[in-house]
């Protein structure tokens, strides 16, 4: 049984239909990349999965739990699902270490020392142990985004949602963040990744979905999507990406 299952999910903002009858299944330890133009609904789709947005129609099941029947404990659910945003959204009034330990201490009720030692382990893994006591504004964008990933991982989620996490970064900082994501994929983390990094998607994804105007128009293994797309719209999108030198 798949770990994440979206069935017929629709979402509107006023008259604007952002998601239309979306179906998606992700197995445990799978990495699914969502590609598509800005405004195609990738971010909204991710936000619906951890209930930052409510869906108007359809159902979402994560880890055997139906999220869309209104009975789910939102806070408990979110502890299982980490999300990382394009703009990092670190807490500027806290040090790196405090950013990483806040949720484990408050939402998982870990002790100060336990959350601290786990956070330092994580920071060591991402190579930022020496920044533990710095405030986010002292860090580069790439470092901030790695801290944001560590902050999400500190809750030991079963699923990670990455929302265009390299889109705000200077080109030379993209690699350090993608390397970290690659490492997570190798460790077997289940991930849904909205991205504009096509070659990264091709390399790391088990499956790629192409979103167009709120619909998953086409979905399949990366080789097929990138080399032999079935849909005209996918071909057009990829042609523009290649033209821009991004693939």
């Amino acid at each position, binding site marked *: 049984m798949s770990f994440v299952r979206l069935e017929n999910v629709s979402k509107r903002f006023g008259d604007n239909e952002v998601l239309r009858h979306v179906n998606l299944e992700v197995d445990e330890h799978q990495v699914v990349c969502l590609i598509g133009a800005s405004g195609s609904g990738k971010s909204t789709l991710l936000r619906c999965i951890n209930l*930052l947005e409510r869906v108007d129609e359809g159902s979402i099941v994560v880890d055997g739990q139906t999220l869309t029947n209104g009975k789910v404990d939102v806070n408990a659910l979110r502890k299982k699902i*980490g*999300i990382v*945003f394009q703009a990092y*959204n670190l807490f500027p*009034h806290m040090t790196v270490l405090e950013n990483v330990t806040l949720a484990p201490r*408050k*939402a998982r009720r870990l002790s100060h020392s336990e959350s601290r030692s786990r956070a330092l382990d994580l920071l060591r893994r991402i190579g930022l142990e020496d920044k533990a006591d710095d405030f986010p504004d002292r860090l580069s964008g790439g470092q901030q985004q790695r801290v944001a990933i560590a902050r999400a991982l500190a809750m030991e989620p079963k699923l990670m949602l990455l929302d265009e996490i390299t889109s705000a970064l200077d080109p030379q900082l993209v690699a350090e963040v993608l390397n970290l994501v690659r490492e997570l994929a190798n460790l077997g983390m289940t991930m849904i990744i909205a991205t504009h990094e096509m070659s990264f998607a091709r390399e790391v994804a088990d499956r790629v979905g192409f979103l167009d105007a709120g619909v998953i128009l086409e979905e399949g293994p990366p080789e097929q999507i990138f080399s032999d797309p079935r849909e005209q719209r996918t071909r057009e999108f990829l042609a523009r990406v290649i033209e821009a030198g991004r693939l």
Partner: protein
Amino acid sequence: MHAVLHTFYSPHDFRVALPNVWAGFQVNLKLMVVAEALVLVFALAIAVVRGLPGRGARPLRALAIVYTDVFRGTPLILVAFLVGFGVPALNIHFVSSRSNFTYGVVALTLVYTAYVTEVYRAGIESVHPSQRMAARSLGLSYLQAMRHVVLPQAVRRVIPPLLNDFIGLQKDTALVVVIGVAEAAEQGQAYSQTYANFTSYVVAAVFFILLTIPLARFTDHLILLRERRERALAT
């Protein structure tokens, strides 16, 4: 010219009036400190209540809005009359037998809480929604996100306007003279009525000014610091 000087600034009257006015001013200081402490706490609570999400919180939100509307709109002097004369007239056990000082604190707190609620609210709204979203996405509850992520940033941003409101509160402690609190303005009045000289009012004014100026400069200093920090971050 001489008459003016004599009436408002006679060194002799200044010296004579000083001890009593100073004694009165200490009451102002107490009113101020107690009211400010209460205002800080209540206003924060009401600001948070006003921002509570969901349909269930609607009555609470409405109550908070009514409160701020009423007490921001009512002149302090009327609130002081209502509390200082009205409440004792009610003859309710305990509540109606408090000192005028207590009624003064209550009146000041009621009115200034309404102002400061709005200051806090502006601060809360100035924290970008993505901060709240990031906190909630980590599994923190609404109140945890508020307490640990939103409010610390919000409060830091509103310290200058908060201090401004406190300058207003300091001065308005003189208004509770109308319900018979023996503070500085009252002492000034007592002196002027006895000796037909108004220097005592000037003495009281000097006390208020001496208290306000450092606070005003401190507020300016904080604003300057923040501007510098923001400019440094923007580069």
